[in-house]
């Protein structure tokens, strides 16, 4: 029996931040240059009253409606988020109750960012394979823009909020999830970080430093060291892709579509050129939603299916990478 992705949907908040608005706030950047550098035209921003579980519920409801799913069959929820509703409790438990799912349903959160979707697939596959669950709801949901400082032009131009919902099951008609590769390099932990608010630095200090390059730093908010992250990704992700190809005993020409974490266009282009991958097999979906953190891979996957780039029989390579540093890849045969 194959274990795979049975259905997938996503949700983007209604509120949109356009390049023109960013350019008005930061006149040194034109809207055209933001689009050219990032590949992004707009990002969706959760409003003040919209939490991570709100986005998740909307993504799940879209999945249930689009695929006519009986939610009582869902026996496990995995929620991947780094922006939970609360530090305690687990967001997956809140979602179980709000969706009215069975009380015999297992529920857990994974605290991972851009690599989290692939990790979530691996946990779901393991749970089904071990006969511990049959119909698993894998949710990704992040409201990362709530943690980006209003004056942080770099990250505001890149990130957007979103949620996705994927149903994983075991049946002969579903796709088949292959073997995974994982990687971790915790020495890079402080290159993508929100330093304050956790148990290490409990108190927020609301101290903003303006750096020489015009960027700002405030430890209460999301920080990313662009140069270090760029170097980490361009060095490690091609190796990760080669490893997952090798472990699944296929060569890159046998992959129909590469769907990587949609970090930004420059980074994705670099990986594509370095690995000599054809443009038409390298899916980019950034323009209308930006980098949606944990949801970027499932959103791209869903869009590739909608656009007909993934059909029955397609072989797809998924690769996530980022905060941690954490990375992961897998092959899925649709």
């Amino acid at each position, binding site marked *: 029996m194959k274990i795979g992705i049975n259905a997938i949907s996503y949700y983007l908040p209604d509120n949109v931040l356009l390049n023109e608005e960013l350019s008005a706030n930061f006149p040194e950047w034109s809207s055209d240059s933001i689009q050219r550098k990032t590949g992004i035209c707009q990002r969706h921003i959760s409003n003040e009253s919209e939490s991570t579980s709100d986005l998740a519920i909307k993504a799940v409801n879209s999945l249930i409606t689009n695929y006519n799913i009986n939610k009582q069959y869902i026996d496990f929820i995995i929620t991947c988020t780094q922006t939970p509703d609360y530090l305690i409790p687990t967001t997956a438990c809140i979602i179980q109750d709000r969706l009215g799912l069975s009380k015999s349903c297992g529920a857990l959160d994974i605290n991972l960012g851009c690599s989290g979707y692939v990790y979530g697939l691996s946990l779901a596959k393991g749970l089904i394979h071990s006969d511990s669950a049959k119909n698993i709801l894998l949710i990704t949901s992040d409201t990362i823009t709530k943690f980006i400082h209003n004056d942080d032009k770099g990250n505001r131009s890149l990130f957007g909020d979103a949620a996705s919902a994927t149903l994983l099951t075991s049946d002969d008609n579903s796709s088949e999830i292959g073997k995974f590769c994982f990687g971790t390099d915790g020495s890079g932990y402080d290159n993508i970080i929100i330093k304050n608010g956790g148990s290490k630095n409990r108190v927020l200090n609301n101290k903003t430093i303006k750096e020489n390059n015009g960027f700002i730093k405030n430890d209460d908010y999301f920080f990313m060291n*662009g140069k270090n992250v760029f*170097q980490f990704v361009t060095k490690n992700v091609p190796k990760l892709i080669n490893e997952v190809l090798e472990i699944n005993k296929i060569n890159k020409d046998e992959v129909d579509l590469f769907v990587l974490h949609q970090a930004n266009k420059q980074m994705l282009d670099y990986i594509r050129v370095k690995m000599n991958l054809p443009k038409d097999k390298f899916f980019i979906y950034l323009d209308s939603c930006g980098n949606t953190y944990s949801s970027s891979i499932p959103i791209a996957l869903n869009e590739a299916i909608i656009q007909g780039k993934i059909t029955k029989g397609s072989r797809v390579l998924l690769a996530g990478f980022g905060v941690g540093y954490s990375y992961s890849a897998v092959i899925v045969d649709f």
Partner: protein
Amino acid sequence: MEKNDFLSKIKLYFEEEPDIEKLNYTVKFIDLDFWDSIAKFKIISFVEDETGVLIEEEKMMSFFTLEELYNYIIKNIK
């Protein structure tokens, strides 16, 4: 790495930039429309990937042209 090969390989990484054809060994980086921090990161990664030479961001900022960068790489390549 041979000089022409170095230039043509760098251009591949910027193939989507409208003014990439302006890049040669003498044009000043700052005169290129696409020259920004991401372009510097791309070149730093490219140089390390292709030659093994590590360039710090500050060092990269001290080069005005590709000629200066290339000469530094040739001196430091192992």
